[in-house]
């Protein structure tokens, strides 16, 4: 993984010192809240319903044991003993006091972390595939390019006051685990005839106007990555709407300009840029790529006798392995997902003790590397199959062994009205109730792959548009109400879910989800036909009939 050099450390230390000065001025009354607001937002500090929230950047979701331990320390010392992992692979703390924020940033700087650009109308933390460098279907490890983009976008002087926030995701293979097409810029690293290039997409986004990103380039030369991103950002900065914040994202510009004309604007700007100034210095790029070299894997047989016999003996381990261990490109290894979705708990939360346990596992079993997934789980990317029984036992001891990766209870939810000042409705209790309803593991496994995603308002932080079943909380005359969308998908078969019909009250939403799931089980051709496949074959009609059949006409 990437290790900070002297320059990176100085950069973060300067930033932490700058923010300490700003907080001091706010606390002394020298700055009003109005004057302070844009400064704190540049440092990821939000004023929420009950307290300040600090969002810490985790570039492309990669964490070391040292960083995890520091995150646990911060949770214990400055928060209420836990942190919340987000759909943008970050971690946020929901109970922060302003006076502590400078100390937290100083603590983070000790482990090469910060909160720069985790809020505000700037280029946000770059996200990537949480299986990067481990997945068998990967063509190129995208993380080195994620790091190059991180450096380029950090405190960019031209692009820090954009019309609206700007999110970049990068993947390294045909299978999209990062919802790349839901981003302002989506990049797929490719290799053709031994040459690296990028498919570049722009104009994707969720929120109140969900749109898939459009492909601008199929194979942009490697050396032009930064110049091309500058061209897109400059067109957006100059042409994006600033009259209405709900129409200010680049997706609206692409939509209103038209895909062909927008592409032409970008290409014209790109043609006018002196690309020689932006070419990534090959020596610099090589240094970065080298930092993402594969760890020293042992040569092992593909099949682990230890693992196979343990899971034959232990049904709990077998259940866990069936869902939470994915194939690795290296024989004898696996990719292990630690679910942060135990039934009845807020999705994505982890206690300080759990984070420390994960740090230890990462150090002992995964070459010192963990990942945050956009599905709000933690991934140990490189574990020996031989070690999985031991890892599983440790996870069980820390309530981290929930065997539900990708199942109906592995729900994405935003913080919702329990924390967020923007929310119209609660998300977490809806997720908890659905998880309780489907708590029976045999039932979950019979249902199979099913992604439920819940947002507490139209800003769609819970990605409901790309949930197989999406749930959107709305305010209806002061009452929390929930709209259901079906058929969304954030992967390479990207689709925006369709609204199924009238919404449901908080007391009805769990029943409605169960009705949909039961209809699927009745309608599927076989257990191999997933919910999404069945929906795409059948359309919305049978699900609507199941949901609304009993209503008076």
């Amino acid at each position, binding site marked *: 993984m990437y290790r900070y050099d002297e*320059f990176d450390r*100085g*950069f973060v230390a*300067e*930033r932490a*010192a*700058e923010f300490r*000065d*700003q907080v001091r*001025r706010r606390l002394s009354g020298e*700055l009003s809240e109005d*004057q302070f607001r*844009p*400064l704190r937002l*540049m440092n990821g500090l939000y004023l929420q319903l009950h307290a300040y929230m600090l969002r810490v950047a985790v570039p492309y979701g990669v964490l070391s044991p040292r960083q995890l331990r520091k995150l646990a320390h911060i949770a214990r010392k400055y928060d209420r003993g836990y942190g919340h992992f987000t759909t943008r692979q970050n971690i946020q703390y929901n109970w922060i006091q302003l006076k502590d924020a400078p100390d937290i940033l100083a603590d983070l700087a000790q482990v090469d972390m910060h909160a720069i650009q985790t809020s505000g*109308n700037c280029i946000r933390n770059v996200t990537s595939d949480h299986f990067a460098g481990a997945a068998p279907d990967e063509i190129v490890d995208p993380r080195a390019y994620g790091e190059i983009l991180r*450096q*380029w*976008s*950090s*405190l*960019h*002087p*031209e*692009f*820090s*006051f*954009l*019309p609206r926030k700007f999110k970049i995701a990068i993947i390294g293979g045909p299978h999209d685990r990062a919802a790349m097409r839901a981003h302002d810029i989506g990049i797929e690293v490719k290799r053709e005839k031994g040459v690296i290039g990028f498919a570049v997409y722009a104009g994707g986004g969720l929120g109140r106007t969900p749109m898939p990103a459009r492909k601008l380039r199929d194979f942009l030369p490697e050396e032009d990555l*930064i110049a091309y991103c500058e061209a897109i950002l*400059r067109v957006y*900065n*100059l042409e994006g709407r*600033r009259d209405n914040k709900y129409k200010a994202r680049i997706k609206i510009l692409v939509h209103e300009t038209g895909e062909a004309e927008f592409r032409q604007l970008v290409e014209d700007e790109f043609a*006018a840029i*002196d690309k020689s*100034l*932006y070419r990534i210095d090959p020596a610099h790029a090589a240094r970065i790529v080298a930092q993402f070299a594969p760890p020293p894997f042992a040569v092992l047989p593909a099949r682990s006798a230890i693992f196979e016999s343990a899971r034959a003996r232990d049904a709990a381990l077998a259940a866990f392995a069936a869902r939470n261990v994915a194939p690795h490109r290296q024989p004898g290894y696996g990719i292990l997902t630690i679910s942060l979705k135990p039934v009845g708990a807020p999705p994505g939360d982890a206690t300080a003790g759990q984070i420390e346990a994960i740090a230890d596992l990462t150090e002992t079993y995964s070459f010192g590397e963990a990942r945050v997934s956009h599905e709000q789980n933690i991934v140990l990317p490189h574990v020996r199959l031989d070690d999985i029984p031991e890892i599983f036992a440790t996870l069980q001891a820390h309530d981290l062994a929930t065997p539900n990766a990708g199942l109906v209870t592995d729900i994405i939810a935003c913080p919702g009205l329990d924390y967020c000042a923007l929310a119209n409705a609660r998300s977490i209790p809806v997720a908890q109730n659905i998880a309780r309803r489907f708590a029976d593991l045999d039932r979950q496994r019979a249902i199979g792959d099913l992604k439920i995603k819940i947002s507490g308002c139209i800003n769609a932080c819970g990605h409901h548009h790309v949930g197989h079943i999406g749930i959107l909380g709305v305010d209806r005359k002061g009452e929390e109400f929930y709209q259901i969308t079906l058929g969304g998908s954030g992967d390479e078969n990207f689709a925006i879910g369709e609204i199924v019909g009238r919404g449901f009250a908080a007391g009805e939403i769990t029943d409605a989800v169960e009705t949909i799931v039961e209809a699927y089980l009745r309608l599927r051709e076989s257990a191999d036909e997933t919910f999404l496949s069945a929906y795409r074959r059948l359309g919305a009609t049978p699900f609507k009939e199941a949901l609304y059949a009993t209503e008076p006409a």
Partner: protein
Amino acid sequence: MALYRNGAFETDAWSYPADDAPIPGSGPVALPRTRYISERDALMQRADPLALVLRPGEDLAGVEGDLARFAMIVLDIPKYSDGRLYSIARLLRERWAFAGELRARGDILRDQIAFLHRVGVDSYEIAHEGTIAALQSGAIAAVRRHYQRAARNDDSIPGVR
């Protein structure tokens, strides 16, 4: 408004005639783009320095060929969050090779000084009282290291410690 330039506050020598007021016959004068274009021929006779004022959203259309005539280009910032001028400034410096003074004028926050410097701005006419006070007391701390290239790539930023 207070003018900050070359690391110190100074008195502004430029005049900004109102749209319906006559253009003074002598002395440095700053004009909006539309007025400059409509009075271009008469302004040819004028010997004293001329500046162009660009509003947010205005580009160089109609004045591309005249840049060498301007001793200064002023980029108006009615609201700090409108970041279009950062792109215009870089284009002026890097694409159009504008070598005169580049001035940002309006609602400028303290943590924007370093960014404005990097995109090529030389002087700041500041409305924001907090920013004026911060510059007066030398209180602006900012990150001076940078990862990416822009119009200016040195680490020394006037007004920033």
